[in-house]
């Protein structure tokens, strides 16, 4: 099994399993081209309104290819898995806790220990305005590394580490509309959400 993962955070973003004996690990470009396209499918409207998908390209230079031990569930939900930082050879992929996007988190000091519910979910607040993207994490790791990408090429990939569980990035004036946001934060599964800028 070959996986493509985000170099900075370890999130698996793509999986391919070829029939027959392995013939070497392909290159990132072979597997994704210039970018791996994460597609956000809007929740279907009962009215049958158009539900155009939102594409969020992840540039190939932010990705790494590795051979991993077969794990069928990775195909169903790749970003729930990650490549451990010190992994070598044929990798044993590991499962992240589930990330749940919320519109707002309570005061961080009031967040439950670990920010997790009994089911292991971690709440992530993603806010987008015309001038700023902000993140807050309800998870335990208040210094998690992250990679954030916006649809429409409106911003370069945003990378860094949380400070006290939060981070914010100024943006060039965004026009009104719906944007897709891919949030890859160490410690939790990948999050693909849409946010409205009004």
């Amino acid at each position, binding site marked *: 099994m070959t996986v493509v993962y985000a170099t900075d955070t370890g999130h698996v973003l*793509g999986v391919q399993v070829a029939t027959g004996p392995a013939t070497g690990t392909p290159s990132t470009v072979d597997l*994704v*081209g210039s970018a791996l396209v994460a597609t956000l*499918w*809007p929740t279907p409207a009962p009215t049958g309104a158009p539900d155009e998908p939102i594409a969020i390209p992840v540039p190939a230079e932010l990705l790494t290819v590795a051979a991993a031990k077969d794990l069928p569930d990775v195909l169903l*939900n790749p970003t729930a898995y990650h490549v451990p930082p010190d992994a070598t050879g044929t990798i044993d992929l590991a499962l992240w806790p589930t990330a749940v996007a919320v519109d707002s988190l309570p005061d961080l000091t009031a967040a439950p220990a670990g920010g997790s519910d009994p089911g292991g979910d971690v709440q992530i607040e993603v806010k987008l305005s015309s001038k700023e993207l902000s993140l807050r994490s309800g998870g335990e790791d208040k210094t998690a590394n992250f990679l954030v990408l916006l649809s429409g090429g409106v911003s370069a990939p945003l990378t860094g580490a949380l400070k006290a569980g939060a981070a914010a990035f100024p943006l060039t004036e965004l026009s009104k509309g719906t944007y897709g946001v891919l949030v890859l934060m160490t410690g939790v599964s990948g999050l693909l959400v849409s946010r409205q800028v009004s």
Partner: protein
Amino acid sequence: MTAPVRPTFTEGQVLAAADLTALVDHARGQQARHERYLHDWGIATGLTLTTEGRTDPASGDAYVQVILQPGVAVDGTGREVVVPAAAPLQEADFAAVNGADPATESLYPVFLAGLDQAATSQPLVAGSTPAGRIQEGYQVIFGRLGDESTLSDLPDPTVDSGPGDGTDPWPVLLGFVRWKGGHIVATAPTSGRVGRRYAGVRADTVAARSGRLALRPDPEAAIGRPTLMLDGESGLAFGRLNSEGSVDPLVNVSPTGDVTVAGNITVAGSISGVTKLGLTAMASGRSSDGMLLPLPAGVTQKQVDGGAVTLHVHVTPRLDLPPQLGEGTWVLGPTVCDVDTDRRVLSRVRWCRLGAQDAEVRDVPAPVDFVVIAAAPPATADTAGGQQ
């Protein structure tokens, strides 16, 4: 140069010695020209260099006595060289050429050459004058390092000449020896890429009388050895010789031109000509959404872009319930399952949870099973050879 002269005789003629000598010379000359022009010179049979272990009584070092075994060779003048009995090689002959203590242990060549020698003989008739005899003998010549590579420099005899008498030896390479500590310590049939020279055949036509012509790598037929056989009934076969004297074919060309190969075929270049079928290559597997499907091994994007190869891509969504959807009874329907022009997977399945008051509907990327078939159109004389 003169044309060969054949002696003739008349009734009552007094035969002189020269008449009889001319008779013998004519036959010898004819035989030599046959050997020279219808064969390549070299060893015809035997003439191997064998060894027997010895120990130097002074130093206690081991060495070998080299023995030239009986055999026959034909040299470049067409002279037959016969070694009738095993003969030990003399180390003094080596030392006379190369010195008793050469500074290298490299392999030195050993040659055989014909040499005419006066033979002691008895009178044919008691009381008469002893008849003249020439012993068609031989000489063993130790060469200097590298002398084996100068054999091709020997001058060709004139067309009408007979066999050489050894005055200008025509050396036939028998093998090599290694010298150490004043003795020969080993022999070798080859040095680098140069080895014993064997006699051959010069012919523009080789015709069998049994209807079957064989080429084999050994003097004696050996079961299992590679053999090339041309058979008037079954065609050309390369394979291993079997106990019936025929070949178990590995490659066969029938009289109608059909080629059958038992092993693998490796083509370094291209295959040209007209074929009835195109070539296909295939890749298959599973992929997640957003990935590029691979090309089959050996197929390049350039071939696809250039139209030399046509791709047939088939994707089928995998309909396993994604774990992130949680508990409940879900029904589903694929909404998109396709690839774009870059072979990027676009796959979505719509899941709907039953039983909820407000039906929950989710569109989720779905992995796919894929098959990519690359098909090259049938090659023709106009299009084959050169498509990369």
